[in-house]
């Protein structure tokens, strides 16, 4: 009578790879092997840096998304939010050039603005969800439209370009680096490591999983459900701000097509990484693997000439569905 008779829990003996845990890693290794096989340049310093730096934006956002999804939420607005933040940031920096001159001062103010606007946007999402008690899907679908429309309006349907002088100084934030490692990669790595520690080792991470697993149980266990939920959206907003800080120096502009479909890529990366879409279980390192898988697929298609790069989206789509199917199989086994 130690365990319920209908659901025995004797661990299976012998060596068995747990695909639920290692599936994404195996897929990543297979992709790297395939890439190296198809094109010798694949593992070159240049290509690796390029892939990692490009995936940093989605990656930083996806780490925040992992917390939101783990606690049973969702945020569809991150792509538009990034575009909106980029637009506001550029307008403010341009506006400050006459008074402050071209220099790091302007850029630092721009960075602060990005983080504050991101935080505010996350706060709006979070408050609507926790205080007004509206479904996360609906709230963020709404704000997605609002942010996208605002950036289009700010740019008057065109493109907002950063002052040329400022752009020259700001460029190294994307293109430069430390000891040969590009800044976006460093920031992505730092965010990911910090995220992993927070998820696994802190009460906040534990509370996120508890809320996503069963909100009622969390409530009865003295977890401040609304506060933790709100925090996940604010954290995500701040991370969108940081991603935008890394993104703006790349092109030096923002338009209505900035950050399109980023939300889907971020959510896909989280799910591929093994976080449960309905919440209750999340892992940040899995999300990092998910981001890398998605960007490697695009990279390999570009390098290999086997399949048209235009089919990138189709292949990513298949991978996402496959990842969820693998998750489900695990559940049936239980």
């Amino acid at each position, binding site marked *: *009578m130690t365990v319920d*008779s209908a659901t025995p*829990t004797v661990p299976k003996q012998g060596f068995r790879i747990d695909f639920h845990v290692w599936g994404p890693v195996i897929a990543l290794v297979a992709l790297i092997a395939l890439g190296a096989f198809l094109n010798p340049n694949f593992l070159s310093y240049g290509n690796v840096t390029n892939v990692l730096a490009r995936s940093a934006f989605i990656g930083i956002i996806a780490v925040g998304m992992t917390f939101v999804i783990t606690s049973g939420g969702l945020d569809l607005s991150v792509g538009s939010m990034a575009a909106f933040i980029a637009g506001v940031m550029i307008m403010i920096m341009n506006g400050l050039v006459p008074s402050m001159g071209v220099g790091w001062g302007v850029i630092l103010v721009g960075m602060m603005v990005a983080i504050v606007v991101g935080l505010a946007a996350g706060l709006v999402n979070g408050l609507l969800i926790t205080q007004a008690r509206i479904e996360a899907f609906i709230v963020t679908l709404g704000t997605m439209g609002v942010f996208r429309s605002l950036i289009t309006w700010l740019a008057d349907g065109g493109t907002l370009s950063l002052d040329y002088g400022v752009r020259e100084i700001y460029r190294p934030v994307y293109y430069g680096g430390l000891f040969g490692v590009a800044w976006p990669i460093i920031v992505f790595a730092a965010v990911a490591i910090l995220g992993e520690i927070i998820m696994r080792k*802190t*009460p906040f991470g534990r509370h996120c999983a*508890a809320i996503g697993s069963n909100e009622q149980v969390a409530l*009865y266990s*003295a*977890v401040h459900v609304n506060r933790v939920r709100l925090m996940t959206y604010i954290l995500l907003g701040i991370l969108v701000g940081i991603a935008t800080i890394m993104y703006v120096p790349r092109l030096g502009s923002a338009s209505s097509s900035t950050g399109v479909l980023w939300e889907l890529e971020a959510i896909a990366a989280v799910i591929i990484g093994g976080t449960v879409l309905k919440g209750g279980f999340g892992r940040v390192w899995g999300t990092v693997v998910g981001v890398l898988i998605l960007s490697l697929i695009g990279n390999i298609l570009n390098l290999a000439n086997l399949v048209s790069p235009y089919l990138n989206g189709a292949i990513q789509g298949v991978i996402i569905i496959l990842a969820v199917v693998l998750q489900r199989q695990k559940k049936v086994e239980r």
Partner: protein
Amino acid sequence: MLEARDVSRSFGPVEVLHGVELALYPGEVHALIGENGAGKSTLMKIMAGYLEPTKGQILLDGQPVSFSSSEEAENRGVILIHQEFNLAEQLTVEENIFLGRELRRGFFLDKRAMRAEALRLLRELETRVDPDARVSDISVSDKQMVEIAKALSRNARVLIMDEPTAVLTTREAEVLFRQIEKLKARGTAILYTSHKLDEVARIADRITVFRDGSRVAIAKAGEMTEDQMAQAMVGRALSNLFPPKVLPQKRETVLSVSNFSVGTIVQNASFDLYRGEILGFAGLVGAGRTELMEGLIGVRPGAGHIEINGKPVRISSVGDARKAGLVYLTEDRKGRGLLLTKSMRENLTLLALNRFGRFAIDARAEDEALAKAIQEFDIRAANRAVPVGNLSGGNQQKLLLAKTMLAEPDIIIIDEPTRGIDIGTKQQIYHFIQKLAASGKSIIMISSEMTEIIGLSHRVVVMRSGRITGVLSGDDINEDVIVRHAMGLEGKVAA
């Protein structure tokens, strides 16, 4: 009519049923009793086609059958009513009753006929459930009635019920028993489990006792007393189900609640709790006992005056309550108490997570706390990593108790401490509660089991329709007086 012959069933390498026999006859009520995990539910599932036996066979009308699905079993008149309901929460009562075999008129649903039939079935069950009500909106006991109506509408020849009365009030259980009598007269064979032995003695014609996956006794009702049943179930004499009452030496008020109201459900409740005392809360289901406690710990908005150790406190969340030394152990283990997909460790420390490090959680301290809890509360699990949803109800309850105690509370509110738990574990939990009280903790115990209230409580508060109708002590703690207060026949309603 339906017979299990030499049936064994294994899950992986673990055999949970060892060659058991069970035969059901038309017009006979067969009660299957045993502790949690004895294999009752597994056998029921096998007989109703939800599981296949690893060995042995099932015979229907003398012919070996192997139902490939529960649907096939249902078509042949063998119907199982689950312990956890199988109702579509978002559909209406009527839609649920006819789910999967809707009445049609040509291409369309025959709503009128279904409605009339649903009403007839529900009326036969003497329940006032509205066929148009959404299942998610009706009470647990009404859901049970809907399940039974659903089975009746399928013209059951063999009806298998897994603890049907666990969630019913005494009055509702009476209606169910009358229904069972009617079904018997129609020649339906009935197999049913219950932890309530008095009930078994009353309605069963034949009794089978399971222990650890084997049949240990079979007898005609009347040949077996309740004591004999209990003894057969646990395999030893249960001398002291309840520990002796140790009254606190002096009256020291720990918690004082006055004029506390929760919405319109609880009105002007006032009571005191003394240190080292077990204060029972009795009343019918729906009397507002749970709501009152949920108001006190801040999960429901409540209004009134609360004093703890003589100081007024304001509690607006479970966190506030915990800080004030007040914890609540929910009656809804699975829905509100435990994270079923998580391991024991994560469940154990959730309420008191702040004690395991402010920024980083100290995993080693958590493991130590778990080892201590497993030992102290005798929690039995195959290994520590199993999701707690796979533990038996008794072990889940012990874990919940351990989780609550980890917050080091002064005042513990326990709601239905032994619901759906076998008698051996019950005894253990009673002793835990008694020990806590003896060590100076103060305990409020809500229970719908009269024996529990009488056997454990030092004083008893009786509630009726959201009001406290009496506080009983000494010789007044007996079934007669409690029922009279609960039914409103006696006792003043506080103005």
